[in-house]
């Protein structure tokens, strides 16, 4: 989906052992597969983001499987404990196989 644009917000730096909140948002229509085209009567095929993964320095630290009934433009926020500096990589996997990614840095003092 051409419009899928991920956004991520987290603190630039954190103290060791601090709990940080990570907020993510992606623009996506999350077509449920339940709707029909009002003109042709054809079913509109499902197209949702079915998996969200957050990896830190290459290791998966958080993931979620998404199913039907997740809203359009899904927002996800979660908390992680900061232990070392590194790079977060966020990936969203679409039903059509597309993968949207975003990275963010966290410096731990």
């Amino acid at each position, binding site marked *: 989906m051409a419009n899928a644009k991920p956004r991520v917000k987290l603190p630039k730096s954190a103290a060791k052992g601090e709990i940080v909140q990570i907020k993510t948002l992606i*623009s996506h229509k999350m077509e449920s597969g339940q709707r029909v085209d009002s003109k042709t009567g054809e079913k509109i095929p499902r197209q949702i983001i079915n998996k969200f993964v957050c990896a830190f320095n290459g290791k998966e630290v958080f993931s979620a499987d*998404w199913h039907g*009934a*997740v*809203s*359009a*433009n899904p*927002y*996800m926020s979660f908390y992680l404990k900061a232990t070392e500096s590194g790079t977060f990589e966020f990936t969203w996997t679409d039903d059509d196989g597309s993968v949207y990614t975003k990275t963010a840095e966290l410096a731990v003092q």
Partner: protein
Amino acid sequence: MRRTITAVVLGAGLTVALAGTALTDEKDWGKYQVGDVRSGYTYAKAETRAIQDDDFENPAFLWVDYGEELWGTAEGEAGKSCASCHGDAAESMAEAGASYPVYDEAWGKLMNLEQRINQCREENMRAEPWKWETRELLGMTAYVRHQSSGKPVSVKIDGKAAPFYEKGKESYYQRRGQLDMACSNCHEDNAGGQLRANILSQGQSNGFPTYRLKWQGVGSLHRRFRGCNSQVRAEPFGYGSDEYVNLELFLANRGSGLPVETPAVRN
């Protein structure tokens, strides 16, 4: 993860249930209330307000960001972008959002923000006008109006705008549709009361284009008008119709002093 839960009141039948239980809370709404005029924000649930309060969490900013991108994109035969003439939107558009619709000499009638954007596209950029409710027009309108965010709504209703204001006012109090209801029957007589599962607001326009959870996206004020008209089983007017632009002016003046909240979040 956010879900929109739609409560369906079974057996409500053909009548619209209007339970006139006005909210009696005396909460201080700060900038969201000016005298008796209350923004839709004050009628929204705490969860909905929380989404609006955080620009990151507010999904409407996906549209605003897109509008910003378009602002700098050259299009049309003239090879110009919005920025070619208007420069930094934060400066040039700082007042626009709070003062539209305005009377336009060339048109001889009112023009709203969407129409101004399209007029500029056609006449100055020589580009195709955007269709209503496209991501482009909503994005640009939201982006432009967002520049006035926090500024009090203040429109001109005197001079040549006066007859159009009167028409808008008349339209507001005109009963219509099979349910024979005027805008005022819900938004003045029963603001704060319940319409099925929803709390009726005063129907202020200061947050449009707005992200509606029900729509799962951003929509224009005219889309909202059309929804309201259909709900009282009246034939809606067209997007950008004179009727709606006149009504838009009346509403803006009715909510004078409320801050522009674009892009707001409502249920």
